[in-house]
Each structure stands twice: as C-alpha cells, then as structure tokens.
C-alpha cells in the first residue's frame, strides 16, 4: 500500500499525532448506547490508543458479534471497515478475515454474552489457534441488548436486577484464554483509562492472540447492589497487579528499568511493554503464575487487573500454517492458477 492517511484541515489547537491526525479522526459515528454505558469508555480508550499509536485507521479491521458491546465498533474508528456479524460467531469471521490478509490489524470487540455464552466454543478455539488479533470483551455480566438476563460471566451468588441469584458457575474468560494458549492476556476496567489505554496499545502491537477482558458496567441492567459487575463493586474490588506502560518503538528507551523495579518486554516491532508488578513474586511471563494469582484473587472476591500474561515471539496461525508473507487476497491469477499444462498431466494420472 502506498497511500497513507492525509492529515485534514483541523482546529489548530487539537493535538496531532505522527500521521498529522487528531483524536477526532479516530472517532466513529455518534453512540446510541445508554448514557454512562461502560462500552463507550472502552470505545474511547480504543480511539485514544490508536491515536497515540498513530495507526492508520483504515488498516484496522473491526469485527464484532451481536450485542450492545458488538455495536460499539460503529462508534469508533469510522475510517476502518467494520463487520458486525452474527451472535457469538465473530471469532470464525475474524479467522477468515485474517487468513485472507495478514497485513491488516484485527480488532475484535465482543460482549460476555457473545463470547462466553453462545460464543464460548468459537472463543476458545480462536485462542487455541493463536490468531494474530486483539480481542476485547466488554464484560458486564449480562445481556444488555436483550434487557438484562445473566450472561455466563455473571458470578455465582451475585444478584441480577430483580433480585434473582445466579446459580450457574461464572466463567472467567481470562483464565480460559490463558489455558487455551493466548499469548497476551489482560484484564481492566472501562472506568480506568489510565490502565486500559496502554493495555490496548500493547495488545494492538502484540503479534499473536491478545485478549483483554474489560469490566464494562451496564448502567441500565447490571449496576445495582448485589451485582459484581457494577461500577461500585468494581471500584471497590479491583486489584491492579501488573501495571503496564507501552513505550513505542520509535521513542528512545532512555532509562532501562532496574530489575525488580519493572520488567521490559520487547514486542516484535521493537516497542516495549514495561510492566510493574504490585507483588514482586509475580512473573508476568509465567502461565502458572498468572493462573495462581487470578485464582487466589478470585477466591478473595477480588478482580485482578493489569497485564497478567505476556509471551513475546510465540508463533501465530499464519506461521503455523506457513503461508506466504504476502496477503493471500493479493495473489493474482498467475500465482494461483496452475494452468492447462498441469491439468494435462493430471488427466494422465487419472487414466
């Protein structure tokens, strides 16, 4: 691709990024979500992350399923193609899209109903195939769009609107992603932009399957007392374990962090995730360390946030399949069609 986004005329006071674009250039159409919905904050964090990363928005493909959360991509990155597919099946569509063109950045946005209820199978399988994408679940423990039923991430023992207690075991998507082989696993809170934006930046820069479980309260149907997905509950029970800073490739990494103080992990493009663990014994590069910490906090009723696991340099689907470096959708007739000579030989072998 030769074209890069052109900087447009803009208000002189708005800050611009390396592409000469403003924050505005990364926005989408006006949100139709409820005022205060966590998903809009997640969208805003995506906008900020892309703006700060100076991503050419049109090189991002947004994919989603069905739900309020899955509508959200309409409201950010208006210059990206988007695909609002069917309920719970975004992972397979993303797999196909990614196979077709490995050169774009794939950003999946889904809900807890979409990914943990109807879509659990597709979610688990896209992780184990290690698709190179960023997968965000805006997790509110409920079905917003169909008016408040519990989703599969609703915690056992918590109360739904109307007072009904959840009796099924709640699914922890972060643990699931870890056990299925995700190579970048984070959890955060829509209300905490400070934490969330760097996590998104890291995920978008990660080569491999990056998963972010964002607690994103549904103000209309699941923000009451007794819910474990309300703003209040989350503010009280979040435990930020590993804070992450994203340091872009181009910026000189002046101060190398001291061991023990922070850990620098290099991404494939040379940028760095600088991680600081609240608990020194925590090793963000160890899956079992992550499991144990998540489980321990869960038992205490706490919600562990931050970048919980990062494996840099792992292979992803295209590498496993050993596909050509060029986008498959860019191959031409000559490269694809073996022609009549070959067919003649084949005919012979069929005799």
């Amino acid at each position, binding site marked *: *691709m030769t*074209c*890069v*986004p*052109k900087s447009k005329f803009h208000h002189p006071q708005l800050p611009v990024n390396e592409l000469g674009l403003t924050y505005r250039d990364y926005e989408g159409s006006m949100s139709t979500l409820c005022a205060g919905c966590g998903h809009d904050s997640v969208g805003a964090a995506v906008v900020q992350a892309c703006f700060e990363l100076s991503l*050419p*928005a*049109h*090189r991002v*493909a947004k*994919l989603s399923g069905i739900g309020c959360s899955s509508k959200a*991509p*309409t409201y950010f990155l*208006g*210059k*990206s*193609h*988007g*695909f*609002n*597919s*069917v309920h719970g*099946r975004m*992972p*397979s*569509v*993303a*797999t*196909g*899209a*990614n*196979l*077709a*063109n490995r*050169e*774009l950045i794939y950003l999946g946005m889904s809900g807890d109903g979409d990914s943990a209820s109807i879509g659990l*199978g*597709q979610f688990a*399988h896209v992780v184990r195939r290690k698709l190179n994408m960023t997968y965000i679940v805006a997790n509110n423990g409920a079905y917003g769009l169909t008016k408040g039923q519990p989703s599969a991430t609703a915690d056992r023992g918590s109360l739904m609107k109307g007072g009904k207690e959840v009796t099924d075991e709640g699914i922890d998507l972060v643990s699931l992603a870890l056990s299925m082989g995700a190579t970048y696993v984070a959890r955060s809170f829509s209300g905490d932009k400070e934490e969330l934006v760097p996590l998104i930046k890291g995920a978008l820069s990660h080569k491999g399957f990056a998963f972010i479980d964002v607690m994103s309260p549904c103000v209309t149907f699941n923000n009451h007392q007794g819910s474990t997905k309300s703003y209040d509950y989350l503010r009280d029970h979040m435990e930020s374990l590993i804070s992450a800073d994203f340091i872009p490739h181009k910026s000189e990494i002046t101060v190398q962090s001291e061991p023990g103080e922070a850990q620098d992990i290099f991404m494939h493009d040379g940028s760095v995730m600088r991680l600081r663990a609240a608990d020194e014994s925590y090793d963000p590069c160890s899956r079992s360390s992550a499991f144990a910490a998540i489980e321990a906090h869960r038992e205490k009723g706490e919600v562990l946030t931050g970048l919980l696991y990062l494996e840099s340099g792992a292979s992803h*689907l295209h590498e496993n*399949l*050993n*596909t*050509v*470096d060029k986008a*498959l*959708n860019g*191959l031409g*007739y000559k*490269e*694809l*069609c*073996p*022609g*009549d000579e070959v*067919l003649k030989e*084949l*005919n012979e072998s*069929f*005799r």
Partner: protein
Amino acid sequence: MIKPIQSVNDFVIKFANVNGTGSASANNLFAKAVFNMGVPVSPRNIFPSNIQGLPTWYEVRVNQDGYLGRRGGGVDIVVAMNPQSLADDVAAVLPGGYFIYDSTNPLPESLRRDDIQIIGIPFTELCRQQFSNTKQRMLFKNIAYIGALAALLDIDFEVFTQLLSKQFKGKEHLVTSNTTALELGYVYAKKTFECPIGIRMEKSDAVGDKILVDGNTASGLGCVYGGATVCGWYPITPSTSVVESYSRFCERMRIDPASGKKRFGIVQMEDELAAIGVVIGASWNGARAFTATSGPGVSLMSEFLGLAYFAEIPVVLINVQRGGPSTGMPTRTQQSDLLACAYASHGDTKHVLTFPANPKECFEFSAESFDLAERLQTPLIIMSDLELGMNDWLCDPLEWKDDSQFDRGKVLHEEQLENLKDGERFGRYLDVDDDGICYRTYPGAHPEKGAFFTRGTSRDRHALYTEEGAHYVDNMERLVKKHRTAAKLIPAPIINIDDKRHKMAVVYYGTTDNVMAESLAKLEKQGLKFNSMRLRSYPFSDEVAEFIEGHERLFVVEQNRDGQMRTLLIDELECDPSRLVSVLHYDGMAIPVEAVVGGIINNLSAEQNRKTGEAS
C-alpha cells in the same frame, strides 16, 4: 437349467468384502483394468457408516455402449469374500449369472442355487500357502480374486502388470508380490475352470481420451484452479475428500517457489458454523474462499448463509449430499437438500445453486463458482452428492483455457476510490448498474474513502443502519433483481430437443444424468419419445421457462422423496403443477435405469387406465 449369461463387455459385477480389510485397492485395480482395456466402466462403493468389520460392496458396471448408470435389479457376477453377507450375495445374482466365492470354507448347502453358476476358489487357502505373513495373507486374498477374474473374464494379464508397475513405481518388491498374488488366482482359475466364462471382456476403443476420477477430487482441483486461497472446513462424510483433494493439490501446485511457503490457508475448524464463518470473513476481506460439507453441516450453516445473503458476501459452499434427514444415511446418496439450500435461513432468502452431473462439471463448476459468487456477492451452493463425489466416474478430460482471468466482480480498489470525483460518494448498496449488484470495497483499501460497516441488519444504500421501512424494502427488492440477474449468469440447462413436436419431456439434474441416455433409449424402444432438459442451476433462466412452457407433460426425475426440484420449478416459474410429474427414487442408492423407465411408464399407463375408465 438356465442358460448361463453370455455377453461381451456388458455386465455388472459386485464384490462383497469386509471393510477395513484392504479390498478397496484390489477392487479399484479391477475397474482400472477395464478402463485400460478401453471399455467404459463405472465402479460404485457401497460402504457402511463404520470403520472396520462390516459388509461393504463394490459394484462395477462394464458397458461397451457407455451406459454407466445403475442398471437396477440383480447383478451378473458376484465375488463373495464376506461370510457375513453370503446369503444376500448369492441372492443378488441374476438367473444365469455367476457366483464366485472363497471355497476355503464350503458354501452352505442352503445357499446353493440351481439357476446360477457357482465357482469356488480357495483364495484364503491359496494365500495361506503362498504368503507367510498374516497381513499379507489378508491383503493378497483380494488381489488373488482379481487374478482369477482375469482368467475367468479373459482380461489381458498385461493390463494388470502395467497398472501395478505404474501404481508401485519405485517399489519393485510390491509389484512382484502383487503379481504373484494375481497369478495365484489366475492360474488356479485357468486350470480349474473353462475360461473364459460366458461373460468376457474384449479390448476396445470406447473410452477414447476419457479419464476416471471421482467428483470430490475434481471439485477440490476446481477450487485450486478457481483461485481459492482460504478454506475453513469440518470433516463430514461424504464431503471430506473435497478438502483433502484441495489440500493435496495445493501442496503440489501452490507452494511459493522462492520461500517454500504456502499460497493457501486451510483450517480445520471446530464445527460447520465456524467453517462458513471463515469463508465469510475471508471473502469479505477479498480472498476467494470456500467450504465443503454435507446435510447436517448445511443445517448448521443456515444462520451464516442468511447473513451472507443479506450482507452480500460471496460464499462458495460445496454440498456433497447424502441421505437425510438428520444424520440419516451418512454413506448413501440423495438429492434431498434442495429446499434446505435454496431457502436456507429465516426471512425471505433465495440462494443460488448449481448441479454438477459428472466430475468434469465438478471441476468446472467449482472453478467458476468463485467468479459467480464474487460477481453476484452472494452464497453459491454447489449441489454434488455422494454418488458423484466418492465414486470414480468415466468422464471427458479436464480442460483449462490458459487465457482465462478471474472475474473478481465489482470491487472499487484504492485507485478507483482515489479517483472518485467530487460529489461522487461511494455507497456500498447503490445499484449503480441497475442489475441489483453493487460495488464493494476491501478493508484497508483507502485511507479516507470506501470504508463501511458490514452488517446483517437493515441499512440504507450507504450501509448506514436504519429501521426505515422504505430503505428496507428498497434493499429487498434489489436483492430480487439480483436473483434475476443471477439466472442469466449461472450454468445454462442442457436441452435436447429430439423433436419439436414431442409433447412430453423429462427434466432432471445432477447424477441422474448418468442413467438418462439409457433410460430414454429404453423408452424409445417402447415407442415413447421425449425431449429432455438437464437443469444445471437455480434460479431458472428464461430458457428453462420456455422449455417447460413448450411441453404438455414433463417428468421431473429426482433422487428425493418430496420432489424438491419440482417445487422450485413451480415456485419460480409459476407453471401449472399438473403438468409436472415427479419420478422419484430415494432409497440411498443411486437412481437406477429401471426407476426412470418404470416411473414414467407406470405414470403413463395409470393415466391410460384412468382415461379408459372415464370413457367406459
């Protein structure tokens, strides 16, 4: 005593085996030998939905005239190697026919028949003596009966040795041991029986440059030639070998010479929903993509098919039909998914179908389907079946025009978008050319122009979400227009006007083609003449409508219970149902000639009786 059947190059032989015992390659060798003698041949595998230990049959029709459909009724020769099915196998022999069995164990008295020739050869015993290793004994028993047949039917032994050297090129010891096994049967038969028997083979040139290949192999190859680069799939009989074939050919023909890397991506997904999801994602993103499945998979894909229809995304789906409904008869053939496919998914939907009738069409239709699906931006379902997909068919050699190009349909690329004039605004669902087909863009094409949101919800011409009834209707009407456009682009029917004055015609499609020439010839012998039309696609073109209009009575021959193609014809063409008479066969075996001939004659004589009755 009934006279033994006498014939040259015209018989049906059936091999009765136990599955998992290695009989397949021996039987295949027999079919290949017939083929190599220049005589038309059609082998059919009749296998259980199981891996090992159950009865399996291989039925081969040999016919100098090239009539290769199932004849129906009994067979001329049985080679009975399976004690489990012995009784059925004896019963299958036509009076005057030949029953060849493994006489290592004696044939139970109760099974003896007077009206057939019983030929016992102790294959097991012969192999026990010849080979020391148990596995070899089991395998070569099969080769031995082929050897015996060479003698009994007078097949040139040379043909076999040539075939073996071709097959085991570089593994000379295998050539030797197989030849030994062949000779074992050959010599025994030669010295024990009067050879040849009444049925025998002669070299011929009736095969010409034809090839012997199964439909799934051809379909997979067609996908390579059609430029498919992405395949998401899930194993299911009888479609699995489509993807296996695509994969095998890709590994040979689609490796980037410089890097050794692959110009294709095949992913075995977790189920059929995911498989078609991959196709939709890849097609949306500008790659040619396909999947192959069978009945249960089609049902599971139906939500996604509706999305592709409404969001207008190309999909190539190869449906190798098997016996339905539900899990049904997984290893039997049928044409019973027409309605499920034509109307797949809730809401007002209509999908494009094509009906290949032989491996060559499997190849061509698969290859072309990518052009068509991309041109039409909609799902295209290729309706093959087990009979075609998993059996070797004699057919014309595959051809390719080297000056072909892919027709990628209406896509605006970076340059076109860049050159849009001021005031010209890209609209994903604008019917610019008045054919119902709009222009699309690929993700990532241009930094400023052409991005839109693809969705399964109602939207306006600029792809913006709307619940406005007028926009919705506008869009749905355009889709009808597109459906009409499709009728003009998809494969035309094969019409055979025997005589313009005929009032009666037969209409058929897919594998029924295999029995049609022979059936019509038989009917003609009884003084019944028909024009005929082989449908090759849905929706129907004007040509189809005219043919239907032009006849008073049309027999629609199908391999399903409910006359599904007839339903589509009536629904789409608004013709009077009383003119379309169903001739159906759907027991899971390919339709035999007798079903067509019998079906038509019964209908006509019932009519005759009715008329006579009325008159009296």
